[in-house]
């Protein structure tokens, strides 16, 4: 079986097993530009146990979600893979700073920034936790738009246009 047919074979079988009685995997991000207008400020809310699972898989050993330097740097590295901006010409802007995290039972909030060229049209790729749950639904609200203009990201469509350039 060559590589392509293997992928097709897998595709037939793959599906989200889902947490059966609790199909409840969402994240929510608030997005705003900083005062200088050159850095995206992001507050991202995730389910703490899902983030813990993602970090554990990524590292290959148990990670306990707690606010400490080690977990912060792993979280930032994870975000750099799954929450980023693309320009039309293919430039990539990744989270550069994780300012902090607030971890509670009902939610974990992550605060980070992405420096970007706002002269460009930008799209947001938000595949956070889609590696943990196939049914993951990520929502992002750009604060410069009306509430109804919230963006929705799913495994089928993990990238959405975000910024039209200045």
């Amino acid at each position, binding site marked *: 079986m060559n590589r392509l047919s293997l992928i097709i074979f897998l595709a037939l079988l*793959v599906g989200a097993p889902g947490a059966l009685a609790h199909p409840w995997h969402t994240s929510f991000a608030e997005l705003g530009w900083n005062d200088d207008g050159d850095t995206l400020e992001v507050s991202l809310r995730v389910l703490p146990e899902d983030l813990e699972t993602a970090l554990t898989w990524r590292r290959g050993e148990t990670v*306990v979600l707690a606010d400490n330097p080690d977990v912060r*740097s792993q979280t930032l590295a994870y975000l750099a893979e799954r929450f980023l901006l693309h320009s039309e010409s293919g430039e990539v802007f990744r989270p550069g700073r*994780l300012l902090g995290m607030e971890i509670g039972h009902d939610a974990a909030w992550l605060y980070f920034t992405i420096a970007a060229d706002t002269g460009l049209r930008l799209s947001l790729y938000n595949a956070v936790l889609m*590696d943990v749950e196939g049914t993951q639904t990520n929502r992002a609200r750009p604060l410069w738009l009306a509430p109804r203009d919230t963006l929705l990201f799913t495994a089928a469509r993990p990238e959405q246009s975000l910024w039209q350039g200045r």
Partner: protein
Amino acid sequence: MHPTRTALGLLALLAFSISPTLHATDRQSGPEKFAQLDYLLDTPTETRLASGAPGPVYWQQRADYDIEVTIDDRAQRLIGRETITYHNQSPHSLRYIWLQLDQNRFRPDSDDMLTKTAPDFEQFPYKTLANLLTRQDFEGGVDLKAIEDANGKALNYTVNKTMLRIDLAEALAPGEQFRFSVAWEHNIIDATAVGARGGYEYFEADENYLYEIAQWYPRVAAYTDYQGWQNKQFLGNGEFTLELGTFEVAITVPADHIVAATGVLQNPGDVLSRKQRQRYEKAQTSTEQRFIVTPEEAKQNESSRASVKKTWRFRAENVRDFAFASSRKFIWDARMAKSGSRDVLAMSFYPNEAEPLWSQYSTPAVAHTIDVYSRFTFEYPYPVSISVNGPVGGMEYPMITFNKPRPYKDGTYWDVRQKPDDKTWERSKYGLISVIIHEVGHNYFPMIVNSDERQWTWMDEGLNTFLQFVTEQAWEEEYPSRRGEPEKIVEYMISAPQVPIMTNSESIYQFGSNAYAKPATALNILRESIMGRELFDHAFREYATRWKFKRPTPADFFRSMEDASAVDLDWFWRGWFYGTEYVDVAVDNIALYQLDTGNPEVEKAWQKTQKDEREPTLGQQRNAEAETLLQRYPQLRDFYTESDEFSVTPWDYAQYEQLQQSLTDREKALLSVDKNFYAVTFRNIGGLVTPLPLRITYGDGEVEELQIPAEIWRRNANEVTKLFITDREITGIEFDPYRSTADADTANNAWPRKPETSRFKLFKEKEEPNPMRRDEQEKWEQPIY
């Protein structure tokens, strides 16, 4: 805001109350939003009444089961034989009977397997790969050995994937029964690798298995007045609905296993040791939690390998399904719990891996759930309620629930009040309590109030999630509930694509938010902000009681809630259950009107104050020092220079006299009233109509709270102006001060506007880190790059 006291005469002012401004929009108008549901609901019949209650010709089917099942602990295989007595209580003749074979979901040719669509491989979940490989190796599906009538004669049948049709030689007439038996076998799946509702978990350290067995026997599908046969294929996600009946089940397992099951154990003398039997009997009169199998005994039992088998017999009445669990690893605790006047035996079964969390919280959570739910619905009608720890994430069956959370390997677990560093999430205390409340709560919806999960997921998940929130909040103050509070639903309400809750579809977008969180939040808002607790609780209890052990549809719920409360809620159902609009109300404009008394002394003085209060312009200020022409040549002054425009003239008096004579005494009294008239304009940006809870702040610092019913939007759903008449000056108006409406944009909720900062800026501005963590955190606290 600028006060106006223009030429508003008395009559003009009295006529002014609400002056809607019409906006052209394609949204529903006020009258449309408040129209009765009528055609959206099924026409009432004598089966389902217009009041929302079951009618005089209401009917439902019944199926009684007699099952013998053996677990082969060496091959992880289940061998079963059942006799089903099917009672046709419908007014229809039936030529065939449909059964569900849920285990066929694991056949390689099942719809579940074939209809999976290809994922984006960059998003490929790791878990999916494990799932995939397990399922590929697994020889799943039901192996049917025999299907016979009561005389042992083979019956004709056809298998269509997860559905089995048994053809009857003669049609089964109304009121008749049909008895038949099915013999089958199937392999049990590894539930740790595949998301399944039942299966086994293997413990490498002690080479033992723990079985949670569900959706395991061929089950008669539901036949209803609203749907006919409910014979949609089982794809793994949609749940199910079944017929109520009596179950007699004999479960044969290795002699050293402990079995937990739906129903009451009939033969403790055969399967329990003398010590266990004594403890079991004692627990049934004890409100204190007791071990029937202690952690030490369970640990010891792990190394046992019985060569003989024992048969546990259970009986359950009036249940729609039967599930069980079996392992030699089980610890077993129990205590009596109260449900109103009834006694219920609350029990938990779990391996040592679940300790110390489980002995502390599982059975108390079961008892607490029964207590709270009983107060909101009806007394728990079953004799036992069980929580089992095993590989299944969270799943409900009558009297028994499977709940997955465990502590970390070192036995510690996460509590928000503890230092976080050495604790972990997935195994947290609140995770466990919440899942037990949710799953035990499902006994009420849909195990007893038997709504159809395949068609209307929200009818059990939404109602159950609502009561789960109430139950969590009654566990402890500020219990960290994940859903229930209105503000938590906002992000979903403003998102797209979205479909109404009442979308009868298996492909609901954003399933969890749609079927669990939105209806749960809607009910919370209905209770706290629209009906009030007294009316809501009575109506909700009435709905539950009416449909206890019966099959309600959405219309039965909507109608019952109105029927029992005398509150017209059609606008609410329409907006929250049939629509996708959201709540966003802006306090847009405030105008102050005061009465023109007509008395020139009062009015001219008022006008003078208004003028004097105006600040001079920059030009006026800068010119103040310079000498003017008039100052240099006083001879230019005349009558008009000297006259004060605000002085009262004889003409003014004459006018006032005339006015006085034209007024009745009552009108004169009104004119002398010294009131402020505030016209406040509210704009409905989100479209979903909502009551207007308001907080008004007065000049003297006093604060008043009031709520305007949602019906204010009935003529114009886009914008309304409300008049407030006060003695005092209003200095502030705030909409929704307690975040009780799920308003999406709080930046426009107050006059004067309150500055809103993003969550990010708030975080940055927070000067102090969390005090719990400050000491150790300050040492390293800095951004990570």
